[in-house]
């Protein structure tokens, strides 16, 4: 009769960490659309999602190789699939957010902005010269910041 030693069950920490990083990736992606973003951060969240996948995969493999020691065959498999989906989604978002046209022909530093006249939000036409001259009767502004944005929707 074989005597089997009582094997100590260990927490499959890799699975938990993997889930944590995957969730950080999801949260991070959400934050980038809430105006809390720097260039570095957008790379960071893809890295988080990638790390989440690596850890989940590691944890799942452990659960299958050493089932007496590590639990988590089901959760490990599910977690790995989730991490994969989150990483794929993060990469897609990253690529889409960067599919911006090159704008090589845009005005450069040192060039003058071409004149324009466009309606303001009350419908009144406003020209670039008017903006540069400032409010009538007052001193002209030291500069004007012209901000082109994607629009509100």
């Amino acid at each position, binding site marked *: 009769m074989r005597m089997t030693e009582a094997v100590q069950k260990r927490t499959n920490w890799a699975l938990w960490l993997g889930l944590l990083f995957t969730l950080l990736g999801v949260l991070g992606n959400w934050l*980038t*659309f809430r*105006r809390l*973003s*720097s*260039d570095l951060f*957008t790379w960071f969240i893809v890295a988080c999602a990638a790390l989440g996948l690596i850890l989940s995969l590691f944890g799942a493999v452990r659960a299958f190789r050493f089932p007496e020691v590590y639990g988590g065959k089901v959760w490990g498999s599910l977690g790995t699939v989730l991490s994969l989906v989150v990483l794929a989604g993060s990469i897609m978002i990253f690529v889409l*957010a*960067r599919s*911006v*046209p090159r*704008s*090589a*022909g*845009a*005005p*450069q*530093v*040192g*060039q*003058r*902005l*071409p*004149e*324009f006249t*466009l*309606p*303001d*939000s*009350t*419908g009144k036409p*406003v020209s*670039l*010269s008017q*903006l*540069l001259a*400032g409010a009538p009767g007052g001193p*002209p*502004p*030291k*500069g*004007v*910041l*012209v*901000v*082109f*944005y*994607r*629009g*509100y*929707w």
Partner: protein
Amino acid sequence: MPVAISVDPPDVSEKLRQKRGYTFTFLSDPKAEVIRRYDLLHPRGGPEEHDISRPAEFLVDPSGTVRWENFTEDIRVRARAEQLLAAVKALQ
């Protein structure tokens, strides 16, 4: 003194302006004519495949000359406030 330009019609810009409590001027370029002239067009970049502007900022002095500009490569990233403030200070 900022001025914000997009393809949104005046009533949409006015709604945004009031909602955020902005006091500066919002201009409408619904046919993207100025946007095209400045080579800032993002074809089909908006909802329902509308042509919109890519994000870009130009700081111009009283003569209309560009002294600082910013073209972000990721639509989620905004120009950092310090960069902008430094450029504005340099105008004084």
